[in-house]
């Protein structure tokens, strides 16, 4: 008879309606501000700079090589290299960025900067509550706002952080082993920057 399809549809919605009183899995609403979904580990929102130890100035891994500035598709990173150097984790004198701005009103959170960074200095953050009504100051994060500790990195991406730390520890051990050898011959050429994967060392891409 004519209305039979419509009745079947209404039966479907009725089943869902009455079913929601019985089985909880039909209620999919998450009452956001009070109740939050468990955070998915690989989530990414905006980049942040990782620093080891407690002092964010000294422990910052970034050496201002400006590879991420060149590779960033929407060009939303600005780096000013410092003139002087500071010792990095291994004790070797490295530059550090005097200014490191990310304009999060342009950033498309595509994590290419994380992929191309040879020093694991920049990683993707997961925080969500960023709406602001201050257009010019609120959306330009400077070095201080970006710097977050390695423990925080372990908090948000545990497995990935563990893998990065293992790789870094291995390189630091290799660099330590090479250092006594390097100490005997005159100033050895600056040891190649530790490179986790296979991309070339510091080669200019242009």
């Amino acid at each position: 008879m004519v209305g039979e399809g419509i009745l079947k549809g209404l039966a479907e919605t009725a089943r869902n309606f009455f079913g929601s009183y019985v089985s909880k899995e039909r209620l999919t609403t998450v009452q956001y501000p009070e109740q939050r979904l468990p955070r998915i580990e690989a989530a990414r929102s905006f980049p942040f700079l990782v620093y080891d130890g407690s002092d964010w100035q000294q422990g910052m891994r970034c050496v201002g090589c400006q590879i991420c500035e060149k590779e960033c598709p929407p060009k939303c990173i600005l780096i000013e290299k410092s003139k002087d150097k500071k010792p990095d984790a291994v004790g070797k004198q490295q530059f550090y960025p005097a200014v490191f701005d990310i304009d999060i009103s342009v950033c498309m959170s595509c994590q290419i900067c994380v992929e191309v960074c040879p020093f694991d200095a920049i990683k993707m953050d997961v925080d969500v509550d960023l709406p602001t009504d201050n257009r010019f100051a609120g959306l330009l994060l400077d070095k201080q706002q970006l710097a977050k500790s390695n423990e925080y990195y372990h908090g948000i991406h545990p497995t990935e952080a563990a893998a990065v730390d293992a790789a870094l520890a291995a390189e630091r051990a290799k660099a330590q082993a090479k250092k006594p050898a390097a100490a005997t011959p005159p100033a050895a050429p600056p040891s190649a920057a530790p490179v986790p994967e296979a991309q070339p060392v510091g080669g200019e891409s242009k």
Partner: protein
Amino acid sequence: MDLETIKSTLEANVPDCRLEVIVNPSPSGQHSLLVDAEHAFAVASFLRSSAGFNYCSNVTGIDWPAKELSEKVKVKKIVDGVETEIDEVSKTMIPGCLEVVYHLFSMSEKIGPLPLRMRTQDRAEGVHLPSLTPVWRSAELQEREVFDLFGVVFDGHPDLRRLLMWDEFEDHPMRRDYVNPDDYEYEPTAHDDVLQRANQHRSTVGER
């Protein structure tokens, strides 16, 4: 049905059309067929009706600006009485042109892409090319887009208007020599070319 057989059948059926196979050095091996503008419509109709290419999937505009080719040429020159061979850098200007590529497929025989290329005389006035919309209806919107972004005028197109930009817009933005409009007032993370544009803006508008 590789390119050579298609070329020979075309030359047999379409009198005095100038065809040229352009070799594609990349491993994809998709060599293309350059056809002159006058006989393009006849070649296209033949390809469509008897060669079975009934599916024109993609129409692309490409801008080749005038290039200066400098190559080393061995020139025999009398230098202080002695016949010596010196290599001299000769600069030859390759005239620029606008090119339109049609990727044709045959649905029945399931043959791969046959890129059909057409080139205009130059990039200023002689930008007229025959429209292939009467042959393949799919070229209608894509030819309008090539007209809008590159400036190639397709003769015989049923409704040649700008597709993407607004109608009062005058220049053709996808050409290599197009300069973006200047709205660089607030560039907090300007570096490299964005920095030059921001400085240009600062100099033109003066320190605000």
